[in-house]
């Protein structure tokens, strides 16, 4: 049973990662920087609980705040960089953050041993959960509480005018401008929200794995972040969740039956999915079909 709880934890955290990319992708910005905001949330909240003895919830809050602030800072220069160039720029930024943490040392002595991030070694002994007697099931529920809250928030945004404006900007930003949309405000706000979500995810990640290092936040993770919403479909938050379950579920199942071939499968899976369903699992047409099934309620 513990195995399934562990899997659910992983799915929960990855869903948050995917959702952080989802909101940014709506505005037409392809950001490979979400893993960087994830990393910042992870390191900051872990440092607060381990080095400063904070409780987890405010620590995650600060991690989210710093993730959001960094994302906001990235959001402004990102406006000047168009289309595919943004992919490269955010990729480079993400790598820069990773290299920063690769070189980051901050240790203090606690109870006779040194704790804290140690460059390439990473940050070990993030033991908030075990030290406070949380069971695997409780950790899983805690993670999912955040995941569900974020999904609810995004679902609400999707139904509001802000959501329609986000998508309008993603469709045609010149037309959006011409109907009075302030592109700067919309794009930067989306990026900031994405940064906050990634920061939350990172904080949760650091504490359930108890050990983070720079390589946990590499280009691969950055591409996972955008893969989930793209493969899942950008029409609905559930698409992202579905994609995470599909990918992680498949990978983990693959682990059991096919041993080491699971990583091979991931790449092939993406290529296949994109060829068969370029607009993702839950694209607008599919959603419309589902809506009709349920009696034609407005989507």
């Amino acid at each position: 049973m513990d195995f399934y709880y562990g899997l659910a934890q992983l799915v929960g955290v990855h869903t948050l990662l995917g959702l952080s990319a989802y909101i940014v992708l709506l505005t037409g910005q392809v950001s490979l920087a979400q893993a960087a905001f994830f990393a910042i949330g992870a390191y900051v909240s872990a440092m607060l609980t381990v080095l400063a003895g904070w409780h987890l919830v405010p620590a995650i809050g600060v991690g989210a705040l710093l993730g959001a602030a960094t994302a906001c800072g990235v959001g402004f220069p990102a406006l000047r960089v168009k289309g595919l160039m943004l992919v490269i720029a955010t990729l480079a930024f993400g790598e820069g953050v990773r290299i920063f943490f690769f070189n980051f040392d901050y240790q203090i002595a606690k109870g006779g041993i040194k704790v804290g991030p140690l460059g390439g070694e990473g940050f070990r002994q993030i033991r908030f959960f075990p030290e406070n007697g949380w069971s695997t099931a409780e950790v899983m529920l805690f993670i999912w509480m955040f995941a569900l809250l974020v999904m609810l928030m995004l679902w609400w945004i999707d139904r509001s005018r802000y959501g329609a404006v986000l998508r309008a900007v993603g469709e045609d930003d010149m037309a959006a401008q011409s109907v009075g949309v302030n592109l700067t405000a919309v794009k930067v706000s989306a990026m900031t929200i994405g940064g906050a979500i990634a920061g939350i995810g990172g904080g949760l990640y650091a504490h359930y794995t108890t050990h983070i290092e720079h390589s946990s936040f590499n280009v691969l993770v950055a591409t996972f972040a955008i893969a989930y919403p793209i493969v899942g479909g950008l029409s609905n938050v559930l698409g992202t969740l579905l994609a995470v379950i599909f990918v992680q579920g498949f990978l983990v199942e693959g682990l059991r039956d096919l041993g080491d071939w699971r990583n091979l499968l991931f790449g092939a899976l993406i290529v296949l999915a994109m060829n068969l369903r370029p607009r993702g699992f839950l694209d607008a047409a599919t959603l419309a079909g589902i809506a009709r099934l349920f009696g034609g309620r407005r989507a």
Partner: protein
Amino acid sequence: MLELKQVSRHFGGVRAVDGLDLGVKEGEIFGLIGPNGSGKSTTVNLIAGIFPLTSGTILFDGADLGALPTHRRLQAGIARTFQSIRLFGQLTVWQNLWVAQNSPADRAKRGFYARWLGGQSGVRAEIAQLLEFSGLAHKQEELAANLAFGEQRRLELARALAARPKLLLLDEPAAGMNSEEIAQLRERILSLRQRGVTILLVEHVMELVMGVTDRIAVLNFGQKIAEGTPAEVQASPMVRKAYLGGEAA
């Protein structure tokens, strides 16, 4: 209401608009015509704030627009349609109009929270009016990309109106329309004037221009070569030369 004084826009060596003087009075329907490449669309883009001016000034309601960005010009009351339709294809007709609910009147009526995070109920009345006006009420849940061409043009117009503009820039709205559709467009433009909207109409389709405008300016190579009522312009030899070519044709 709108004044262009010695407006120029150069792209490298190309003088798309060169020393243009134009004046549009409040409540009028002003036409802008000229052969291809004469600078009509560039003029619209300059008024809308898409590019900066190389020189000259544009005054709206007496105030210099300066370097005001496009979305702020909308707030000031200038809306436009696009020559090549630029709808939000993956959004429904209703959502296209919803996104454009951005006028100062809206802002006065509803607070920040309601406008951005609220649901659809608050604006149903206004949007219903727009749908009524453009005959799209029955298609409000359809994705904009799935509309027929004529319907898309009507949505484009409706969306520009959603922001309750004082000045409406129409960039070749009749392109690709048949006579019946042009007649309907003419009616719609005239009813807009009755509601107090000033209109600058850039157009090639003479059927529409001659039948709906109060005054027309003719551009050629970025400069104004004639101005006057439709009758005056039609009779002008300069205009004929510009369209049909001079001696060396």
